[in-house]
């Protein structure tokens, strides 16, 4: 197992190098080049030349990339143009909040998604099956930021209006924006979870339907095993592999999706940081946040691979 993990870690290195190169190269896409991007459009040629020297941009590209990698390994991602703070410091403050949002959303969506998927698969072609799958597809179709806005309208306008009209005057039920208390988590988590829950429910249903057709399920039933045990012990356990993969991949997607949800709910996470800095053209922060999210995404995929091998003894470790 250790050998397998090490091999997968080694295989992830070229991808991570590729990611770092893409992020490194991205600033060179900016019209005028990185020095113009950093100094601003009104910079004089002398200022740009000086900045090029200071940043080592007058050196060959390969040397610049190696230097960039060296700085990255020392957790030096430069300084924010806007705040002047080290980028690492900015990310350190914001990342835990994004992770909190992603982890809670993933937990909520997994529990609900798997339950709905299993229930739909055990009653194929029933009203619940059809209804839940249409609902799931609608959930996937809903833009995350729009469902966030709709939740805000519901909890901050419609529900208080209705409660007031029936004699329970109240203000907004949940705080529409910000962070700090568990109430602040409810709306962004619901918006994020609705989308990934729908994907997980569809996946769970499809896999369970396949597993429930297998001979060993018929054998378990023929032996007189209780239906609950057949479903949850015999079937779900074997259906878990693809579901775990989807859940793992969803975590990465949630990190990306957080960019939109955090913008809607003014959640002070890494996604919001990215969006805010784009309008300021704060390139060091943009590079730093993109690199962090992508490394998180690669490492999550790696963890899913390892978990997959751990869950399925048929997968060889070497």
């Amino acid at each position, binding site marked *: 197992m250790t050998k397998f993990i090490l091999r997968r870690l080694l295989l992830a290195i*070229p*991808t*991570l190098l*590729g*990611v770092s190169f*893409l*992020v490194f190269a*991205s*600033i060179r*896409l*900016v*019209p005028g080049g990185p020095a113009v991007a950093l100094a601003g459009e009104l910079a004089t040629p002398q200022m740009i030349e000086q900045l090029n020297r200071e940043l080592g941009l007058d050196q060959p590209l390969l040397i610049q990339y190696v230097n960039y990698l060296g700085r990255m390994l020392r957790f030096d991602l430069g300084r924010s143009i806007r705040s002047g703070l080290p980028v690492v410091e900015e990310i350190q403050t914001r990342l835990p909040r994004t992770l909190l949002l992603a982890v809670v959303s993933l937990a909520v969506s997994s529990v609900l998604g798997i339950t709905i998927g299993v229930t739909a698969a055990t009653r194929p072609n029933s009203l619940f099956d059809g209804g839940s799958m*249409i609902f799931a*597809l*609608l959930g*996937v*179709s*809903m*833009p*995350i*930021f*729009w469902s966030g*806005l*709709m939740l*805000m*309208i519901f909890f*901050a*306008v419609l529900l208080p209006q209705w409660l007031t009209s029936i004699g329970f005057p109240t203000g907004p039920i949940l705080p529409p924006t910000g962070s700090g208390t568990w109430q602040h988590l409810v709306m962004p988590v619901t918006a994020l979870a609705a989308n990934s829950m729908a994907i997980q429910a569809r996946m769970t249903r*499809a896999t369970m*339907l*396949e597993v429930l057709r297998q001979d060993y399920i018929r054998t378990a039933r023929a032996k007189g095993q209780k239906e609950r045990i057949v479903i949850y012990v015999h079937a779900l356990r074997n259906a878990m592999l693809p579901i775990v993969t989807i859940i793992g991949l969803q975590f*990465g*997607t949630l*990190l*990306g*999706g957080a*960019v*939109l949800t955090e*913008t*809607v709910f003014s959640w002070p996470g890494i996604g919001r940081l*990215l*969006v805010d800095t*784009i*309008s300021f053209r704060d*390139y060091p922060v*943009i590079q730093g946040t*993109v690199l962090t*999210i*992508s490394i998180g*995404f*690669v490492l999550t*995929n790696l963890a899913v691979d390892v978990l997959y091998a751990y869950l399925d003894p048929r997968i060889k470790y070497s």
Partner: protein
Amino acid sequence: MTASIPTGLAAPHNRFKLPTSIRRLIRNPLAMVGLFIVLTFIFVGLFAEQISPHDYDLSNLSMARKGPSATHLLGNDEIGRDMLSRLFHGARISLTLSIISVGIGLVTGVLMGVAAGYFGGVVDLIIMGIIDIMLAFPSILLAIVFVAFLGSSLQNAMIAIGVLSIPVYTRLVRSSTLSIKEELFVEAARALGASHLTIVLRHILPNVFAPIIVQSTLQMAVAIQAAAALGFLGLGAPPDVPEWGNMLQKGRNFIFSAPHIVLYPGLATMLVVFGFSLLGDGLRDALDPRLNR
């Protein structure tokens, strides 16, 4: 001299059978709902100019943020422009944007996938290495990065969304090419002296046509959603263009006083994405019944 033709030569598997597939598609009510939504969307997109009840760009401050009425069925936006007309014109933008971006992803992805699967070796290693790196970014992030550095415009949004769909096509076409190139009919064509280009164009691509159609339908949904997301973040079309994501971004500031401004563009996005997803699922079931669950 007559010779019997091996079955593998005569009937390549997975070939696109139009009449049977269409019959199967028509029998699927959900797919028909999807088709209806998609056709309506295309119709609205194509004839936005003719069916719009008002000038989509004409502002009337006295009507600003007014809710639905008999003259303005979906109400007015933050500067009094007719919401319905703007939604219709937004459909045109979404349609154009999704077709172009899916086209970019399709052409590039198919070329890369065929090259990787057909030639294998170093070509495969390099192409799949690039794809692995692209897949290391959550897709919307890749589009955001692209637009953030290139500058926000409708054109760059199209390119960014196109780029993010390349890996899907590359992987799909590569895996199909890998299995098809081992088939007898490809071997026979090679033995008869067919060039690589002929083999790819006449024997491999027709056999990956069905999964490409299915994927493209589903990618249209992804593209429309991604375009709205970029618009919402202010990274898509210029502020005054009635793109659905743009309209949501503008309406966000009036969410409590005029919720209809954010309700309809989001609903339209959801409905069209829903339509393409239903149609895509239906097409997959119709064109490849082995996947039918």
